């Protein structure tokens, strides 16, 4: 008998259908990967199984767990199931923990609300569970607060909380999406070993096909509120019966057609850049200690080149980016753009030569400005910006260059999807024809298929306008797709650089090797070779 059986589940929020007949089964001890893009309904399916749907959600169908239908189970009984029989962890470990409670208390709470364990016992077991997930008491005592831990450590605390009572089912909703690749690898290993040792079933929700390929026994692919394909992992990857699965697979590994431009003169030169941050004073009369975020970094970007900068969070790549944009002073070293010194006091005409596209397509637009105003914003850097009709013509041209239309300029940002907003951000960077565009995790927040199209756009724009790109990302696949040369940064230093393919295929520095090794990959021999043996098998809806 299945541990969890979801049958013909539909879900609508205020009349909008979001799940259209989802059926899934999960056996005890099995790992099911639930893959799909944002809006496919994979998180809602998980929340429905937890009985934690948002207000106003109406459902039909059934979710059978432990022999009862969760959709018809009253709330007090659901409370007794959650945390005891079903545990769940979420995507964002930075905010998933209560900031004002020690981690040990938060883990012990799971035990205390479900069992009659005395306080001391609950805390002792909590400490054991924390040690089990890799936070031993002597190094990370349970009295620590969440802000004293890294993202990976916080995710471990969340896991400890979810598995403290050895639930039969653990639901992990994008548990590693917010983490660096090496941390991701450790967390995935931890999940795998917990499943093996505790005999838990795991529902692993992710957008990343490579992640499920290494972990799941079965995979279900979701699209637009339906399960479009479901099978054991290896056969599913080998066959890829559904066109959507193939599309997802192609997009996740998409490399745009690029023509490398002939290298021009050096455009950006960074010589021995060092940036220190002052830390809080530890002693009233001593000098404030400092933290060296960027240490003696030198690099050169030539006109028409596309260079990647990779490294994990905290390695200093954002600080280096801000210094290159002239937003931060340096303690040592110099940065030159087109031969002129870059720094906080640089003239607007020099700033006009470098523009930036940030990660968050939602946060980087003022919601109360129309697109025409937002996209034309960099014009204030010019001594004689175009006005009136000329200005609108320039905005229209920039919008058309990124695949939008001139009619979009009178809309507001909320009328656009995430991918379209990232196009708008690129249009804004493009409008004053900069020589250098800095792309700071510019495609990291996008779904794989949207990401593939944005990468195509970037490749196309580079050829058309002879642009130079500095592409900052933690995602090695993306960097590989769009850059000629790559720099690997660790603890404020560039540890390796060279042509992208060579660095990733034959990494020489141990850190680069670790990064490459930690990147999840679909086994090469699983690539769909044979045509689908029996088209339609496992398809629904």
């Amino acid at each position, binding site marked *: 008998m299945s541990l969890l059986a979801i049958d013909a589940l539909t879900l609508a929020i205020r009349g909008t259908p979001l799940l259209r007949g989802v059926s899934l089964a999960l056996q005890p001890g099995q790992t099911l990967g639930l893959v799909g893009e944002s809006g496919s309904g994979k998180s809602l399916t998980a929340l429905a199984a937890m009985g934690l749907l948002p207000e106003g959600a109406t459902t039909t169908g059934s979710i059978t767990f432990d022999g009862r239908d969760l959709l018809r189970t009253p709330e007090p009984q659901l409370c007794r199931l959650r*945390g005891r029989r079903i545990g769940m962890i979420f995507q964002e470990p930075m905010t998933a923990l209560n900031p004002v409670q020690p981690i040990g208390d938060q883990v012990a709470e799971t035990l205390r609300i479900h069992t009659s364990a005395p306080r001391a016992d609950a805390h002792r077991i909590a400490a054991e569970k924390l040690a089990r997930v890799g936070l031993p008491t002597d190094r990370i005592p349970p009295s620590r607060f969440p802000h004293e831990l890294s993202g990976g450590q916080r995710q471990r605390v969340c896991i400890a909380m979810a598995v403290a009572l050895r639930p039969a089912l653990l639901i992990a909703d994008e548990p590693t999406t917010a983490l660096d690749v090496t941390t991701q690898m450790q967390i995935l290993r931890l999940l795998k070993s917990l499943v093996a040792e505790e005999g838990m079933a795991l529902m692993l929700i992710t957008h990343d096909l490579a992640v499920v390929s290494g972990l799941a026994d079965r995979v279900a692919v979701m699209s637009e509120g339906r399960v479009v394909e479901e099978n054991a992992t290896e056969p599913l990857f080998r066959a890829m019966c559904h066109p959507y699965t193939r599309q997802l697979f192609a997009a996740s590994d998409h490399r745009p057609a690029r023509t490398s431009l002939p290298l021009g003169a050096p455009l950006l030169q960074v010589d021995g850049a060092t940036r220190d941050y002052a830390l809080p004073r530890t002693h*009233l009369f001593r000098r404030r200690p400092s933290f060296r975020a960027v240490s003696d970094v030198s690099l050169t970007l030539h006109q028409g080149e596309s260079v990647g900068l990779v490294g994990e969070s905290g390695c200093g790549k954002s600080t280096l980016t801000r210094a290159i944009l002239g937003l931060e002073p340096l303690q040592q070293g110099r940065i030159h753009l087109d031969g002129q010194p870059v720094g906080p006091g640089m003239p607007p005409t020099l700033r006009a030569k470098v523009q930036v596209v940030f990660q968050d397509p939602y946060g980087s637009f003022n919601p109360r400005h129309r697109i025409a105003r937002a996209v034309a914003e960099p014009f204030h850097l010019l001594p004689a910006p175009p006005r009136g009709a000329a200005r609108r013509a320039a905005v229209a041209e920039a919008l058309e260059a990124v695949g939008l239309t001139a009619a979009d300029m009178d809309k507001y940002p909320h009328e656009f999807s995430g991918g379209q907003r990232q196009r708008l951000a690129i249009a804004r960077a493009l409008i004053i024809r900069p020589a250098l565009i800095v792309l700071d995790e510019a495609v990291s927040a996008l779904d794989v298929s949207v990401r593939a199209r944005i990468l195509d756009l970037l490749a196309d724009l580079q050829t058309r306008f002879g642009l130079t790109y500095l592409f900052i990302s933690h995602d090695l696949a993306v960097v590989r797709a769009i850059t000629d040369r790559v720099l690997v940064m660790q603890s404020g230093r560039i540890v390796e650089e060279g042509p992208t393919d060579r660095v990733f295929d034959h990494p020489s520095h141990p850190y680069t090797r670790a990064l490459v090794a930690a990147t999840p990959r679909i086994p090469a021999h699983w690539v769909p070779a044979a045509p689908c043996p029996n088209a339609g098998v496992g398809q629904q809806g």
Partner: protein
Amino acid sequence: MLRHLAERLLSLGLSLFAASLVVFAVIELVPGDPAAFMLGMGATPEAIAALRRELGLEGTPLTRYLSWAGGMLTGDFGISYTYRVPVSQLVLDRLQVSLPLAAYALLLSTVIALPVGMLAAVRRGSATDMAVMGTTQLGIAVPNFWFAILLVLVFSIKLRWVGAGGFPGWEVGLWRGIGALTLPAVALALPQASILARVMRSAVLETLSQDYMRTARAKGLSRRQAVFRHGFRNALIPVLTILGLQFSFLLAGAIIIENVFFLPGLGRLVFQGITQRDLVVVGSVVMLLVFAVIVVNFLVDIAYALADPRLRRPA
């Protein structure tokens, strides 16, 4: 935590010093000679000079500042020009009314506002929420002296539960003292509670949408348990700021209410001091209020650190 405490204490001392300079400078700058004012139109220059000496108005500004500030530190606030008694005596008498009144009002406002604000947040959009929002809007809009008069009409004149005003002193008994302060405290607490309830409501709403509340629910806590165990303390952080500001206001800002109820409080003392050009009284009371505000801010800072571990710097 200890370091945090020491830092806050140092900043407290520096703020007091800066404030004393400002207060002293302002008093120095006020035109007119207090001695001449006190002795009236017909005073002889000799008499004025003698009084000036007696009042400590002679000497360089530095020596006068030092003796004024030194006096403050030792509890010697000088002699009031008009009352002819030590200012410390006056202030002490008035504090016996003002301090309990402020504490009483603050207690009432907190006890009412926090649960009400929380309830409104948890039942957002319900009739309860709308009633709370409407009532608090009214509480902020209604002038508190008018509300005070209303209270007197109902509880003193109609129902005769408490006196209409005045303060019998604590000697006649704790309960009679508290009784005399009840209507003024209610009048003072109403607008404060209204503001606080709204702040609490929005602070709780803010925490309700946080990821850690979802985590708490995933652990098996009921909605109510999640709000109490994880929402309340996080919501308190913005509320503490408002509480600190309110206590400072209640201590000195009760002038109108003190007048409605004929209470001999600090507010009235300052008001009288200003109209009678009694600069010794004004300077001392202002300094005392500054001291109170700074100490309250200090306590709020400590409370922040207790409520929010992120503010406790690692040692």
